[in-house]
């Protein structure tokens, strides 16, 4: 049943969403959400929506209480509300409201705020998944699918009609004709799949802070892409002078040292795609994060080669994020810019610090590919 107050409640929730959007930048910077998934609820603090009024300052007033204790004893935190006498003074200065939102909602808000376009998936029509829905009732079927309620109802109706039903002894005996069975239909559902290949430079020059940035940014990218694809897979590649595929946990927590050969990662990425993800069926999103300090000019040339020949033709978009680090030269993004000019499927972004994550997400996803 719908109560009148639900309109007001929805209005309130709308206002809260507005507040969340206003402060989205702040929430995005925070790393604490990234252990969350899907429609799990996040509790986030929202600045008060209370109506302001002239009232007495927080703690200066005090009040009157009742009970035991000597002068100078603490009385605990007088709670607002029931403490009528202390009411005006006992509200804490700045209220913030704890609000539950799901990650999906948050991702949607992110999309609205950054004005991210909906992603146009490719291969949408080529892949069809078959699903079974139990949606009908049949007169024949296996016993395992017998529909008890329908069967009972039919039997009852028949007995009442034929006058064999005795309310004093309500015994219902179904006969063959009464039985009903659940029946299923197969439905074909176009499905689009996507894979994200995260690559990260874990060489000595990538510090904790840089990794934190990568972690947060990839979390939000993940959240946004998940809003568009039913089945999404993530693959993680780390590299220094060598590249290897790792699981998610390792990806975020390893600290290696040593040199940097970006080409190794790109080559591995290309292999992964070729092996597991035929481009006609998959939407492919490689993301690479590094501090932009590659080993040699030769290796950079190799990278460009791999990108141009083996990756770019197959993917929706290749994204490169360069995190600023005190050790890196930051040359790589310039090289990419120079050599890959004109490629629409490339998104490059420089991420200076945590505050820049917001803009960077936009850089990556504004293309809507």
């Amino acid at each position, binding site marked *: 049943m719908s*109560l009148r107050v639900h309109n007001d409640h929805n209005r*309130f929730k709308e206002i809260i969403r507005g507040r969340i959007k206003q402060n989205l930048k702040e929430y995005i910077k925070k790393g604490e959400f990234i252990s969350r998934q899907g429609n799990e609820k996040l509790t986030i603090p929202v600045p008060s929506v209370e109506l302001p009024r*002239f009232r007495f300052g927080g703690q200066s007033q*005090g009040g*009157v209480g009742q009970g035991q204790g000597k002068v100078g004893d*603490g009385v605990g935190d007088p709670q607002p509300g029931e403490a009528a006498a202390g009411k005006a003074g006992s509200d804490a200065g700045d209220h913030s409201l704890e609000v539950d939102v799901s990650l999906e909602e948050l991702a949607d808000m992110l999309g609205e705020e950054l004005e991210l376009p909906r992603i146009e998936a490719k291969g949408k029509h080529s892949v069809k998944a078959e699903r079974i829905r139990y949606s009908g009732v049949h007169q024949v079927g296996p016993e395992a699918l017998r529909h008890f309620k329908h069967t009972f109802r039919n039997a009852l109706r028949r007995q009442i009609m034929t006058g064999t039903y005795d309310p004093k002894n309500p015994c219902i005996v179904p006969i063959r004709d009464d039985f009903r069975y659940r029946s299923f239909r197969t439905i074909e559902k176009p499905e689009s799949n996507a894979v994200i290949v995260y690559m990260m430079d874990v060489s000595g020059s990538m510090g904790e802070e840089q990794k934190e940035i990568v972690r947060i940014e990839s979390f939000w990218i993940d959240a946004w892409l998940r809003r568009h694809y039913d089945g999404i897979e993530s693959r993680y590649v780390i590299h220094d002078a060598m590249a290897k595929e790792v699981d998610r946990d390792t990806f975020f927590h390893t600290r290696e040292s040593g040199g940097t050969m970006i080409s190794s990662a790109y080559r591995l990425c290309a292999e992964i795609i070729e092996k597991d993800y035929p481009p006609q069926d998959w939407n492919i999103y490689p993301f690479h994060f590094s501090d932009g300090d590659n080993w040699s000019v030769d290796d950079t040339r190799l990278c460009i080669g791999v990108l141009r020949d083996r990756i770019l033709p197959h993917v929706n978009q290749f994204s490169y994020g360069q995190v600023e680090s005190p050790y890196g030269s930051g040359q790589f993004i310039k090289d990419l810019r120079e050599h890959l000019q004109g490629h629409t499927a490339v998104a490059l972004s420089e991420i200076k610090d945590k505050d820049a994550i917001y803009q960077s997400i936009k850089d990556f996803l504004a293309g809507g590919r």
Partner: protein
Amino acid sequence: MPKALPVELVELQQRVEEVAQGYGLGIFRTSYEVLDFDEINMVASYTGFPVRYPHWKWGMEYERLSKGHEYGVSKIYELVINNDPCFAYLLESNSFVDQKIVMCHVTGHNDFFKNNYAFQHTNRKMIDEMANHAARIRRYMDWYGVDKVEEFIDKVLSIENLIDCQAPFIARQRDEKEKDDEMIGDGFEVVRLPSDKEYMERYVNPEEFLDEQKRKQQKKAKEAKRFPKEPMQDVLLFLLQNAPLTRWQRDVLEMLREEAYYFAPQAMTKIMNEGWATYWHSKLMTEKVMESSELIDFADRHSGVLQMAPGQLNPYKLGVELYRDIESRWNKGQFGPEWDDCSNMAEKRLWDKQLGLGREKIFQVRKIYTDVTFLDEFFTIDFCKQHGFFAYAYDKKRQEYVIESREFAKVKKKLLSSFTNLGQPVIHVVDGNYENRAELVLKHLHEGVDLDVQFGRATLKNVHAIWTRPVHLMTSVEDRPMMLSFDGQNFQEKLLTKQI
């Protein structure tokens, strides 16, 4: 939505009201409705009325109540509104004993609404009035847009406490016949007393007399310019009369002001009202209505109502204890000069004149007092000692509230000040044409407690939105007189040299 009242509750209502009337309670006809928890949460968010104008703040309250219910922290047993007939809501899931207590409690409130003087000017058809307000505001929302109307409502709600609670009982502005002192004149020329002889002029109109006349003239001219003539506590009324509002805005402001005045007496009599209802549910239950098998449940509920968390003031408890104290004192004759002058404690302890005036007295008290006067008169030193009251204050060093004193004078002062003007700062309009620039000056009558600056600013901004010209607030911050101003863009704080 409304379900017919089950037969057993109809019978119960008859019984309770019969018994109550036997004790001398005078009540409005009461209409009970049984609601499930979601419905009662809704009605409670609407402050007891089934229909209110659309606004998100009800939604916020609803969310708070629903969550409280969900987590089992709070539960609303009953709701009652001041209306004729009196409307009361019962929670469907209450046990039968609960419903008994609630009905007895509601009957107490009902009697209080009907008989306490603070309520005599309230609209007893408020339930219709509220629905009318809702319909009108909905219509404005249809015409002018939800956002626009809601935004204006937000602004008004932010200052809805700036009313003059005593206004219905006092004529603030008397239509005083201007004592048109002909001697003062129109201000262009000093009026002289007539004298025929020129040589008498010096004596009839001496220099001092003319100066005096001049001074009077200037004072009057100044007074005539002052706007408003007297400081006004009803800021809403001042805005209603003088702010540049459109017709729908004026109407909305007027409705919200009316609602604020309707609720004011309830805030003014919180202790008395809850105390009275508690006194009567306890009396009716224990003496007439309760079955002996229900005793344990009753005791459990009743002690729940009266429980005190450390450091908190429970209005139910304070109220009922005061009524009982009064009743016992008047029964024993512990009042009047003789009692006050007696300093022999032993004699006082055994004092009993067997007057039996207690019941009569508390009925009189519930008629003519409000919380402030009630506490002022009956919160005595004996009562304070007996019930272990203390005053607490915030200790900045320890970052917590600590017991400041158990001294009677201090406790009482704090108690009274926290109830004066409903525990809200007193704010007057002192000037509507400041510096001759149509700027509005509000003045906080500072009585030792500073305003919350953050909130003050935000509120001032809302006042500005209604007044549309710059607005100022005179107050004191840490003992320095200040003027806080908002001109539509920026806030400004200025130290005032003159103490306000």
